[in-house]
């Protein structure tokens, strides 16, 4: 079965997980090609966040294969190991390090040796500083670099978290509801930013906001009760009678 995974960046096959008998993920299969950007939609409780928990090592699946790069078994690794493989994650609720400055948030996320002793004696190099400056301007927080992250607005925190994600230089970004709580203008800008990111990295975006998904213009996977309900272009899945039933029948 691993042959099928060949050439894929992320490969989920027949994955299930239950919480106290409740099947949050039910025989889910999904394949992501290198360089691909994918949008995942689905009603609340469909299992979108749980899927990301499985990929990033937070939740162990009961059954099924989760492979990165066609061969690396993610179910055997912990969060830190998976992150260091090159999988970055943005949480649904923005989580940044509130008592660190914006700049330090980026600096901590910056790709580097992660060992405790390496960190103890670490001195920030000019190259690192340059990279931090670049990221800060990408996420438009350069003028807020010394501000404590706790003082940022909700939308700015979302952006900071995306910046931290980029700082890790991941090969795959998992982005959970990036537009939640954003103004329309911020949402539009976020879509532009993600499309920019998708030029160099693979991205999986979970989002409720249909205008946002439309703006991305990528292949869509519809999740429902822990499995894939439909897959295709946004127009195709919107026309799918089962999808309409799930969304309207709520």
């Amino acid at each position, binding site marked *: 079965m691993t042959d099928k995974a060949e050439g894929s960046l992320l490969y989920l096959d027949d994955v299930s997980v239950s919480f106290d008998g409740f099947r949050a993920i039910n025989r889910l299969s999904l394949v992501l090609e290198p360089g691909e950007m994918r949008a995942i939609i689905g009603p609340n409780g469909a299992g979108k966040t749980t899927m990301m928990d499985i990929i990033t090592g937070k939740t162990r699946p009961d059954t099924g294969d989760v492979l990165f790069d066609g061969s690396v078994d993610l179910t055997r690794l912990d969060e830190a190991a998976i992150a260091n493989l090159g999988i970055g994650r943005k949480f649904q609720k923005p989580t940044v390090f509130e*008592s660190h400055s914006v700049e330090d948030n980026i600096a901590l996320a910056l790709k580097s040796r992660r060992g405790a002793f390496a960190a*103890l004696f670490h001195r920030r190099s000019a190259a690192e500083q340059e990279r931090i400056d670049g990221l800060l301007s990408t996420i438009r927080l350069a003028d807020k670099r010394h501000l404590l992250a706790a003082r940022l607005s909700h939308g700015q925190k979302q952006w900071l978290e995306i910046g931290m994600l980029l700082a890790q230089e991941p090969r795959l970004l998992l982005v959970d509801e990036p537009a939640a709580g954003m103004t329309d203008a911020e949402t539009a800008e976020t879509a532009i930013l993600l499309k920019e990111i998708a030029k160099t990295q693979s991205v999986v975006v979970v989002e409720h906001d249909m205008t946002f998904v439309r703006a991305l213009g990528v292949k869509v996977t519809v999740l429902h009760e822990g499995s894939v309900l439909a897959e295709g272009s946004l127009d195709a899945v919107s026309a799918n009678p089962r999808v309409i039933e799930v969304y309207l029948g709520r």
Partner: protein
Amino acid sequence: MITSFLINSLDRRGRFVVGLLVLLALLVPAGNLLVPEANAFHVSTYQLTLCGKYLTYALLALSVDLVWGYCGILSLGHGAFFALGGYAMGMYLMRQIGARGVYADPVLPDFMVFLNWKELPWFWHGFDMAWYAFLMVMLVPGVLAFLFGWLSFRSRVTGVYLSIITQALTYALLLAFFRNDMGFGGNNGLTDFKDILGFPIQAPGTRAALFAASALMLALGFVVASAVVRSKLGKVLVAIRDAESRTRFIGYRVEHYKLFVWTLSAVMAGIAGALYVPQVGIINPSEFDPAASIEAVIWVAVGGRGTLIGPLIGAVAVNFGKTWFTGVLPEVWLYALGALFVVVTLFLPRGLVGLWDRAVTGRAKPVKDVDGSERQAGEAA
């Protein structure tokens, strides 16, 4: 590399604290030994020893703050590491007594003769050598903390659960050390010390030297703590405190970082205990009392958690209060301490240091945070 790493780690406030401690290490012993008693600047031996004791408490508080204030690990059992360091020192001091004990046994401490023991238990060997004993002062708490931390951090025990097992740890040790057959003097502990490094332990010169050693060791502890919290590792610790799982998803092995700071902190607490014992002249199981560990947490809360100066101020202020209260109104002390803790928790989340910072920044530059130069006290101190 290490020295420049340590020296560069101090900010202005830190240099002030270290300078002050070095000054105290010189002036207070001078005030005791050189200034005549009639003079207003004379420091009595009682005052000197009392202050020396406070300094060892301050080092304990600093070690608690390192894990609690900076990494969010609320230890309610740090008294155990303090007491273990104290026992290691106590064992050395017992062996220094030699044949001058009541039973005049050249090797066995009095309590062992009393228990009819014929030879020294294996774990008492080596404690006649100062270097070995001083190594054990750090190694015993360090290794215990490492094992304890390795087990609990790896299984991701956090929050209240971790606090509870730290209490259990110190309580278990309390019960164990009460037992006579453990070989640590049981209920009475270790006492009646005579010499330290060959100097009579009660002599004014020795007491002054112990005070100076406590002040300098606190200064060193402060410099090390400062270097740690201002390094990138220190920033990772704060990140873990703020958002542990985020830190994992960025790729940091949280348990390794916790283990590092936890072990370092236990070693600091052990050193504090070792300096405490020769000054108070006794170590007994009551140092393992869970209440003692909780008190240390209160010192940190009062002074200002997550700042480096806070625990020093808190430990000295609260213990000064304790000394005063127990002299004047002994029954009231515990209530006063409880009330203090409640007031600080409710109204002063950053303790006395936070209060001071707010008073200073509030008056001088009210819009400081816009240009970002306002940092949390945790980073400033």
